[in-house]
Every structure is written in C-alpha cells, then in structure tokens.
C-alpha cells in the first residue's frame, strides 16, 4: 500500500536541485549561494541512495560518501574565499567582486 518507490526520491531530488540552482543563480549574498550549492549536492545524494536501494547494490552509497567528502572540502574552501572577499571589500555580495572585469 502506498509504496514509496525510486521515483518519489527522484522527484524530491529534482525539486531540491531546482531550488538550489535558483538560489545559486539569483541570490547576491555569497553565504546563501554556498548554502544553495550544498542543497544541490544533497539532492544528488538522494538520487544515489534511491538507486542504490532499487538495485540492491552498495556502490551508490559509496559514491555518496565521496560526494559528501567533496561537499565538505567545497564548503571549507568556499567559506575561506568568502572571508578573504569580506576582508577585501567589507561585503559578502558577489557583484562587488569585479577585479577581473576587463
């Protein structure tokens, strides 16, 4: 009765991915952009876990561990860049970082 299949997880992953992408593309605050990137990586993990369960194969879970590793490193480096940007401009808004504009 009312079995939760792989498609339920895929739809949830797609919704979280779209929300995260919307945050990355529209927000000006770099902290929120980094948090949206974490949302996108989390939605990918949901898909990996759902397929791992459907196939009865652990490889999806192993891959999700590596995704979490990359997310942790990305958060550390991204927040380091954020602190450096804040020291330079005294703001966390992304459209202030225009040093490379020609």
């Amino acid at each position, binding site marked *: 009765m009312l079995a939760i299949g792989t498609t339920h997880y895929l*739809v949830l992953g797609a919704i979280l991915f779209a929300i995260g992408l919307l945050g990355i593309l529209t*927000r000006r605050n770099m*902290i929120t952009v980094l948090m949206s990137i*974490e949302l996108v990586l989390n939605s990918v*993990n949901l898909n990996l876990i759902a397929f791992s369960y459907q196939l009865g194969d652990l490889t999806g*879970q192993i891959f999700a561990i590596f995704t979490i590793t990359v997310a*942790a490193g990305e958060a*550390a480096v991204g927040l380091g860049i954020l602190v450096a940007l804040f020291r330079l401009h005294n703001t966390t808004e992304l459209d202030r970082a225009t040093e490379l504009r020609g």
Partner: protein
Amino acid sequence: MAEFFAAYGVAILFYAFAAIAVGGAVMVVTMRNPMYGALSLLATFLSVAALFLLRNAEFLAVVQVFVYGGGIMVLFLFVIMLVNLHRLKESSLFGEYSFVGVVVVGLLAALFVAIFVGLGSGAPAADDAGLASIDGEAVGNVQAVAWRLYTDHLLPFEIASLFLLVAMIGAVVLGRKN
C-alpha cells in the same frame, strides 16, 4: 492501528520529511538573514538523513548528520557570525540578472516534468539484502560499506583523504591574515 502504520508508515514518514526538506530549502533561498537560512538548511540536512534511513542507508544517514549537521553547519554559522552583515538590510536580495536564473530554472523544471510524467513509481528493491551483506553473508550496513570502501574502492578513498588535506591547506591559506 498497527495495520495502518504497517501499510502507511513509510509513506507518512517520507512525505513528512520530504515536506520539511523542501520547506527548509525554500527558506534557504528566500530568507534575507543568512542565519535563518543556515538554520533552515540544518532542517533540510536532518530530514534528508531521515530519508536516507528509509532507504536502508544507515551509515550514510549518520555521516549526513555528523558532516552536514555538525561540521559544515558549524562552519557556516561561524562565518556568518564572523562577517558583519548589518549593511545587508538596505541592499536588494536578488542580483541584477536574476531573471536569467529564473528562466534557466523554469526550463529545467519543464524538463523534469517532461521526464517524470508517465514514469511509474519505480520498481521496489530487487534485493535490499545486498545493502547489508559481504559476499552473501548478512552483516550490518556499516560493516558492508566499510568492506566495500576498503577493498574495491581503496584508491578513491585514499585520493579523497588527499583531497581533504589540499582543501584544508587551501582554507588555511585563504583565511590567513596578511
């Protein structure tokens, strides 16, 4: 009552945690104060961990709580408190070209709808015993994941540790005062 939970329990848990996850994600994107956004993000992380549990990924659920709910969330909260955000109040929330982002996400959502309409609810697990066994012998999920990680995927595991070292050095160099 017992039959009701046996029939609908997983579905109720899935929809409840999925609603919390989506609500938290929406609040991350729409909140002006990043502190509220970070706490909504924590709600999303914890519900995703619960959704991992519903798919027999016990180890991943615990790792999700530790790494996302613990490490990454503390990092975000520290940085939010470190930078001074009082000036944010008068500035606009969304960027100058955010309509491009809305168009891109709208097209992506249309693509998702086109993919998911007509897709069934998905086959149930072929053999979920495979998620908690080593060579057919039944063990716990943690033991099975560890076995696969340290035998078949040893080289990627070591490269991941090297990656974390590089990320740590990078974060220290970037955060250094000069």
